Structure formats: C-alpha cells, structure tokens
C-alpha cells in the first residue's frame, strides 16, 4: 500500500502525539500537515497554475479527486472567499496560520483518513494509569503509526537526501516540511546534517522550485523551542541518573514516573501486583510479568518497568501503591 504525499508526512508528524489534547508539539505538526496538503495539491495539479500564481475556486471543491482532508484544508484557507489566487510561498505562509479550531479539523480529517488505511491507530498512554489522571477522569491516548510505512517514508527521505543524484519534488518538499516541523534531529545524525545542509544549498542553486520554497519559514520559533526543550527534558530523564532523579521528583517528567495506587494499605506483594495489572488491563495496555516478587518487572507496551512499592502524600494520610520506573537496559 502506498499513501499520498501529505498522508505520508502526517504519518510521521502525528506519530506519538497526544491524540486527545492540542499540545504544543501537535500544533507544530498540524501547521505543517496543512502546508503538506497545499504541496500535495501543487504536485498533483490540483491548482490552476499561471506563471507564479496558483488559483483555486470554491466550485473546484466538488471535483471527485478532491479528498476529504484536502477539502478540510482548502475550506479553511478559502474562508468566505469564492476563490484564492496567490503565490505558492505566500499560500504556505497563510495555511500555516490556521486557528486552533481549523487545526483540530485538519487533525480529525487526517487521523480518519490514515485510520481507514490502517496506517494509524490510537493507543492508550501509560500516564492515563496514574493515580492523579485516573481519579480526575482524564484519559490519555496517543497516535501510533504503522511501523512499516513509517520506516519506508523516513528511510526513503534519508536515501534521497544523503545519496548523490537527482532528488524528487516529493522528497524535497518532505525535507522542507521536516525542517519546518523541527524533526531534522530525529531523522539525521549530526554528521548527516552537514550533508543535508550541503544538499539544500545545492538544490537552492539548481532548482527554481527550491529557490521558491526553501526561504519560506512557516514555523513558530517559540513552539519549536518549547518542543525541543521538552524533548531534551525527556531524554535527560531517560538516562540512568535522570531516572533516579525523576523517581524522587516525579514532577520533572510525569510520563516516566507513573504512580498506581493499591486497593488497601500494607498490601502483600501478590495483591500489589494484582492491583497494578488490573489498572493496566482496564486502560487497554499489553503487559507481561517478567519477574514477580517485592519489586516485579513488567513489560508494558514493549518497554520494561520495575514496579517499586511507594507512597504519595494524599492529604491527611499517605496513599500506598507502586511507582513504575523504566528498567535500565542501556
């Protein structure tokens, strides 16, 4: 199965994003997904081209080849206007400034389309099992992309960028979108980024399309900055020292220090484990108990955790339970 250009980008952009809340990182991704829709229409001759101007009329929305997700983005850009006529770079800037209301519509349209192709699913986030989230009735879910399709998109982009030879329009647009969504460091190593930089300069010199699109910056520096800071924080808390610090001060990274309360005070090790497994089952997680005992080892959704007996301050009385701590394997 092969997806279309913007679907391929959204597969990468939505992966591991919170599916229920509009987080800062998801806002960055959705702005770029909207831009990817415009680029897809440009590649597939969805616009009327006249020199540097691209034109789209409202009545074109009725064309059968216009998909639901394209329609969602085009309607948001058109607003009340009957037609839009703009240069591609300016149109990309306009589409990246959609309001939260439209960004959510774009997300729904893409998530549904990818879901229909079995390319994206919603999975429960472990944080939803935490005492605070569970008792407050806050559900936590995230998107997970089809691993095979995800790998194909990323590896094809890496191959086309890092190898000598012609680069396709699709790969060039994908590269630009990855730059604007702040994903370069996730895809390329520091050494490879030097080659990427050289490749971009090469494209800028030799291609008209690259000269038009490369100078366009649709990212918000603040949003990208926050995204990078959160990623750094998560990485720091993932190290052996960070895991220890986070265990003592869970506030640093709540998602990696989940507390699950037990039914009663001073429960035995079997009952404690039973309560943890009940919560995990309730929230739809896949788990396997690798080791029983006072500190059991549980594999939850492909990651291994230690369930360390603990207590949190619950007002007048402490609440007994276990805190899940990532088991250091590397």
């Amino acid at each position, binding site marked *: 199965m*092969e997806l279309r250009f913007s679907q391929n980008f959204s597969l990468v952009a939505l992966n591991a994003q919170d599916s229920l809340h509009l987080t800062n990182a998801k806002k960055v991704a959705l702005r770029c997904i909207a831009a990817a829709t415009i680029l897809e229409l440009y590649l597939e001759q969805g616009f009327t081209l006249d020199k540097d101007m691209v034109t789209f009329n409202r009545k074109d929305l009725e064309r059968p080849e216009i998909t639901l997700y394209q329609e969602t983005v085009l309607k948001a850009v058109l607003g009340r206007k009957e037609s839009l006529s703009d240069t591609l770079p300016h149109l990309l800037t306009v589409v990246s400034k959609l309001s939260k209301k439209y960004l959510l519509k774009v997300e729904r349209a893409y998530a549904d389309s990818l879901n229909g192709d079995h390319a994206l699913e919603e999975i429960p986030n472990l944080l939803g099992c935490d005492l605070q989230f569970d008792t407050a009735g806050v559900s936590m879910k995230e998107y997970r992309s089809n691993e095979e399709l995800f790998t*194909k998109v990323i590896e094809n982009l890496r191959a086309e960028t890092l190898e000598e030879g012609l680069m396709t329009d699709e790969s060039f647009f994908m590269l630009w979108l990855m730059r604007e969504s702040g994903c370069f460091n996730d895809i390329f190593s520091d050494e490879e980024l030097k080659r990427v930089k050289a490749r971009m300069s090469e494209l800028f010199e030799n291609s008209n399309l*690259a000269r038009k699109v490369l100078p366009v910056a649709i990212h918000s520096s603040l949003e990208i900055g926050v995204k990078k800071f959160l990623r750094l924080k998560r990485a720091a808390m993932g190290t052996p020292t960070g895991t220890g610090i986070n265990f003592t001060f869970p506030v640093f990274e709540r998602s990696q220090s989940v507390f699950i309360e037990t039914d009663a005070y001073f429960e035995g090790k079997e009952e404690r484990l039973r309560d943890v497994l009940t919560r995990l089952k309730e929230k739809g997680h896949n788990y396997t108990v690798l080791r029983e005992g006072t500190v059991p080892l549980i594999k939850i959704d492909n990651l291994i955790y230690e369930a360390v007996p603990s207590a949190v301050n619950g007002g007048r009385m402490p609440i007994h339970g276990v805190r899940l701590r990532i088991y250091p394997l590397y």
Partner: protein
Amino acid sequence: MSRQRTLEKILVSEYVSIGELVRLTGCRYSTLKFYTEEGMLPFEQEEENLTRRFPRAKAVEKIKEIQELKKRGLSIPEIKDILLQ
C-alpha cells in the same frame, strides 16, 4: 528535480535507485548502503560520481536472500561467503 515514480512504475522498471529499493523492500537506507559497500548487492555506476543504479529483480531477490539467511542466525561474513559462492 523530477516527480517521484509510483510503485506500479517502479515494479516494471529494470533499474531502481536506492530510495526506490527502500520503498520496495522496507529495508533501512543505512542497511542497504552497508550491503552495497560490502559487495552483497549488485549495482551499476557509469562513472565514479554518478548515482548507483540497482537491477530491480536481482537486488530485491538478494535482499530477500540476505534476510532469510539472517533469520537462520548467520553472521554477515558467513552470508557474504554464501553469496559469493
């Protein structure tokens, strides 16, 4: 720059690029590059600085063979020996 070829077109063409080989097999780019540099994958290169072209059918078959041998627990030097025989 040019447009990306569809999967249907790639499947009927004699030669493919490394990126297209990634799309066909789902293998990682770095893995294919390693196989190529180790001489495990057949390719053609007209001049030193020109792009490498892979004969589609032969390259896909070799990749499948390598994957099969890896599943059987063979190491890369052992696989290389078998492929060279």
